[in-house]
């Protein structure tokens, strides 16, 4: 029991530290961030993820269609495939996958980057020079990822729907026209807006979690500390995306 208690206490302490960090980060975000840094990180997060998002979402969309088909075919519900793939993909799966992918690639990168700066005393050097590291390091990264993830989400939705259509027509031999009609009937602009809006939330969460773990890496842990920060930021970003997706969906549906 003692072990569980220490675990709970440590987790609560981490949540408290995270809340404090979130407030500091929000305050740092309110001032205009350094523009050059912002552009550099935005292109890194946005353009750098396009290839990965394309490959992964293509397979996710095709997989969703094939799996959905085999689940519905069992009781003759093939007609519902378009509705399932359209709404499920646009509102839930593609935004969450985009969040997890960005968390695994960009978030982990940010965490490792900041942690390396922290353990090699570069952050302290900034403070000594009178530069606020929250404003100079954290704010541009937060803005860059928050602005880029919704764009990636919209892109992921487009790619995913294309992949679903391809799988339905080329692999499962369904009628393409019927599939598109089902999509048109079931997917509204509000669904697209919901997906992109989720991307905005996930982007900020992922970036904030990654910056928190990178920024609070301890100098005495050395190289190990970088690994710990990266690991925690990947896991917690993925869990945060999934849990917040459920909360947002529950609010929208109920």
């Amino acid at each position: 029991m003692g072990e569980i208690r220490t675990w709970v206490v440590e987790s609560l302490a981490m949540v408290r530290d995270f809340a404090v960090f979130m407030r500091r980060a929000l305050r740092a975000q309110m001032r205009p961030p350094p523009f050059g840094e912002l552009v550099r990180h935005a292109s890194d997060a946005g353009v750098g993820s396009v290839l990965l998002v394309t490959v992964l979402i293509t397979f996710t969309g095709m997989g969703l269609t094939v799996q959905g088909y085999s689940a519905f075919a069992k009781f003759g519900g093939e007609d519902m495939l378009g509705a399932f793939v359209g709404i499920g993909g646009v509102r839930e799966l593609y935004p969450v996958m985009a969040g997890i992918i960005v968390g695994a690639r960009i978030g982990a990168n940010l965490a490792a980057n900041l942690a390396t700066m922290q353990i090699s005393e570069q952050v302290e050097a900034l403070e000594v020079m009178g530069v606020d590291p929250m404003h100079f390091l954290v704010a541009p990264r937060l803005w860059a990822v928050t602005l880029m993830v919704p764009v990636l989400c919209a892109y992921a939705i487009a790619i995913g729907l294309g992949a679903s259509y391809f799988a339905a027509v080329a692999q499962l031999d369904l009628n393409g026209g019927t599939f598109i009609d089902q999509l048109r009937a079931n997917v509204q602009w509000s669904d697209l807006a919901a997906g992109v809006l989720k991307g905005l939330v996930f982007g900020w969460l992922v970036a904030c979690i990654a910056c928190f773990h990178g920024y609070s890496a301890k100098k005495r842990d050395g190289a190990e500390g970088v690994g710990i920060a990266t690991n925690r930021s990947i896991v917690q970003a993925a869990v945060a995306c999934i849990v917040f997706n459920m909360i947002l969906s529950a609010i929208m549906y109920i």
Partner: protein
Amino acid sequence: MSNPLVRAIETIGAVFRFTLQLGRCILTGPRYFRETIRVMELLARRCLVPVGLAVAPVAGVIALQGVQAFREYGVEGLLSSMLATSILRQYSPTLASIMVAAQAGSSIAARIGTMKVRGQIDALAVMSVDPLRYVVVPGLIACMVVTPLLNVIATFLGIVSGWFFAVPVAGINDGAFFDNLYSQVSPLDLWIGMGKCAFYGAGVGLIAGYVGMATSGGAAGVGRAANRTVVYTIILILVADFVIGTLLLNQGL
């Protein structure tokens, strides 16, 4: 060397050779059982919470969304068979493996990377302990064994969470939910999920070991190794998932 195609082929060859080496290490002794058990226990404890937190909310969302779609056709009683099949075969194995990759894969890669950067791997070799046998193989075996076990717990949690969102929250009939649940699910579905998990778990251990052993460049290299492991493993899992799904559909399973 600068040609990306040549480099890609080189990497594939290196990974293949690494796999064969690991295979030889597993088949012949010496084996470090105690280290393997220790890593297994550590992984199971560390991954349990993330895996549960990943699968349960997704099942809830499928239930909520499924209720909307099924209600339009007036067949909301069938929701549970769609829910159970997709959780057992698809979402639970995939998400559990992705979370194992995120938690265990990145921490194994970071640990091996740290040892490599600090020269501990070389120190092991000097003491005539094969680092592959002592560091990489236990991680591989542990991932392969622990992932299917976590999948069972995750599947259970997923179905409970799906029930919670379908019956008390969305107001589906409790009896209809359970009747359709049992009518469509067979042990085969669970075995397919377990098999997928063992395969993906082996992929996690293999990629983490390979990327970790290839770490260079100090503390920043450790972060890169942890990051790369997760990205590569997620690519492997999603591509393999699609291929396996297609194969199963063609086999009529």
